[in-house]
């Protein structure tokens, strides 16, 4: 058998194009369904574990899926916004702990997640380098963000404008990186966390500038009355918060009206959860309170339906490929008729020919198997990320 393998190997390495094509076909047809299976298992793991560890999510009425994808996986699609009043309402009910989320802006393509310190306790996130958020304008970054951007505690990170032509004229905020979070293998690794108030600074709702009520620079003032000064757009707002200017940062309007994308709602117990859900079931409440686990179950059901369809397609393709491979071998036997004849005359038998072909198939399958294993290992290695880019984004 070793000799057959040797000759087969020589033949395969001689006819490289044919061999490569065969190996590619066999590898692809093996890798496709397995990789798909791996990715689905991973997305199920990621989606479900995250969803199941988030009891309730409060947001504006609309797509529950958008709300969950944004609130749990920091998806780009921003749901309708709600206001800070929702947090107060949940807190006032005494039934649950509200954790506000404002997931809308980005810093170098990573989502900026505005929240409160309660989020870190809730998700069990700890700081490995540097320290927790303390002052306005600081951020803590997920492990993956730190690694990919090569930043650590003490560096700074610039928020990105929401659109290229940001007409509102919101200045990017240069955030100070206070700390780096321990890796959690969740979307938290890929997020930039800021205090909810800092998120409003990014949006320009909270900002700092020279004191216009005392300024001597008439150029920045449109109109001055006894109790209010109207400033114009020439007034320069600070793009960085430091000990020298932090005092000047202030709110405009009512903080209750400040925007949020969702509120993670952690009920005290089962009963509180039921009461809360009952309260927000009412269509007039202006909110929807969803159970992320249920929403994600629905999504997974759809994904699996698609997967079954894909499986069927892959099966058909596999059969077609199999037939094509049989044809390729049959043709190659005809092409090698003279060689086979010579083998017969030298003293080989039909069995010899069969052994040679078997050795060829074995080698092709072996090489494909190795390639398949490598591909699957790679998929497995990066499944975390692949799922995030393919399924969640």
């Amino acid at each position, binding site marked *: 058998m070793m000799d057959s393998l040797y000759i087969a190997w020589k033949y395969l390495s001689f006819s490289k194009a044919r061999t490569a094509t065969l190996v590619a076909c066999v590898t692809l047809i093996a890798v496709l369904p397995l990789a798909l299976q791996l990715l689905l298992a991973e997305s199920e793991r990621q989606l479900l574990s995250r969803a199941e560890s988030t009891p309730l999510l409060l947001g504006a009425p609309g797509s529950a899926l958008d709300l969950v994808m944004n609130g749990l996986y920091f998806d780009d699609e921003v749901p309708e916004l709600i206001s800070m009043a929702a947090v107060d309402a949940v807190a006032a009910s005494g039934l649950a702990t509200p954790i506000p989320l404002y997931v809308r802006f980005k810093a170098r393509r990573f989502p900026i997640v505005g929240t409160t310190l309660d989020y870190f306790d809730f998700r069990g996130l700890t700081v490995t380098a540097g320290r927790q958020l*303390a002052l306005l304008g600081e951020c803590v970054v997920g492990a993956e963000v730190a690694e990919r951007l090569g930043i650590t505690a003490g560096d700074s990170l610039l928020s990105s404008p929401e659109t290229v032509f940001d007409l509102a004229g919101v200045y990017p905020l240069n955030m100070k990186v206070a700390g780096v979070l321990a890796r959690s293998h969740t979307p938290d690794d890929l997020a930039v966390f800021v*205090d909810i108030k800092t998120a409003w600074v990014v949006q320009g709702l909270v900002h700092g500038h020279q004191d216009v009520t005392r300024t001597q620079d008439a150029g920045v003032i449109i109109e001055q009355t006894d109790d209010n*000064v109207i400033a*114009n757009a020439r007034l320069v707002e600070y793009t960085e918060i430091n000990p020298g200017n*932090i005092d000047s940062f202030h709110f405009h309007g009512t903080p209750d009206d400040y925007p949020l994308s969702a509120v993670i709602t952690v009920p005290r117990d089962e009963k509180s959860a039921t009461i809360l859900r009952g309260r927000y079931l009412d269509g007039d409440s202006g909110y929807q309170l969803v159970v992320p686990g249920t929403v994600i179950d629905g999504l997974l059901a759809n994904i699996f339906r698609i997967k079954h369809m894909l499986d069927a397609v892959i099966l058909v393709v596999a059969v077609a490929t199999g037939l094509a491979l049989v044809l390729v071998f049959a043709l190659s036997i005809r092409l090698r008729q003279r060689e086979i004849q010579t083998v017969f005359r030298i003293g080989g038998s039909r069995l010899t020919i069969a052994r040679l072909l078997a050795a060829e198939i074995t080698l092709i399958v072996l090489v494909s198997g190795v390639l398949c294993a490598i591909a699957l290992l790679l998929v497995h290695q990066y499944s975390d990320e692949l799922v995030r880019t393919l399924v969640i984004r």
Partner: protein
Amino acid sequence: MTYRSLAWIAAISLLLMGSFVMAEEKPVIYTVNYPLQYFAQRIAGEQADVTLPVPAGIDPAFWQPDAGTVIAFQQADLVLLNGAGYAKWVSRVSLPRRKLVDTSAGYRDRYLQAEEAVTHSHGREGGHSHSGVAFTTWLDFTLAVEQARAIAAALSRLRPAAKDVFERNFSVLEQDLLALDSQVREIVAVDPDNSLLASHPVYQYFKRRYGLNLTSVMWEPDVAPEAAQWSELRQLLKLHPSNWMVWEGNPNPESVTGLRGLGVDSLVFDPCGNRPVDGDFLSVMQQNVQNLKRAF
């Protein structure tokens, strides 16, 4: 059962008890001003460590903690806030919401506007910046009682086992505060129309509660007023004749002499926002009351 297994059981029980004791360690309570620290200390007694990290001599209302101090606040079991916009730094740092106790939240509808504040807006369509809310709430002693009550409730939630102690201590504190309240009311009742000046606009709640006829200027106790301020005062005295100026702290002699020349005497009513050099909140307030009596 062998001795060895008994020893094991004993060891494990000790460990369990140890962890129980650990869990029941004294809670750490951080506060943003001295009145809250004082109330919390009175209510908690030996059951908690109450900290006010503001250095002496600095008005806690206008203090800005560094990051390290903010982290200490984050790690406390409770953070007592005054509310009413007191200590603006609170809105510029990250604190865990569930540890925060806004002691004046119960009477949010009774907040007063700071009369001197000027807001600003960006463009004609823009929302106004936050106008100032007056924050020296505790000088209305009934409001101080409300704040103390909120502290007692928060402590009871934190350590339900010590609820009785907290409630008992609160009752005593309430008595003290209400005694101050009735003393002030009695003093003011002698001459309700008595016209007073205040060196600084910090007495809004005090004025409302006790029905004082009080107008504020913007003088600092330790800074001699400029000529412009003197002429402003003379204008004011024409509209609002008064014989007494109420100071937050001991006024400098130059101001006192100058005022006396205008027929205005000085008295100190210390809001006691930070730790006093001598005595405590109660003794400072009692001294305040004694000082106030001179004007009536």
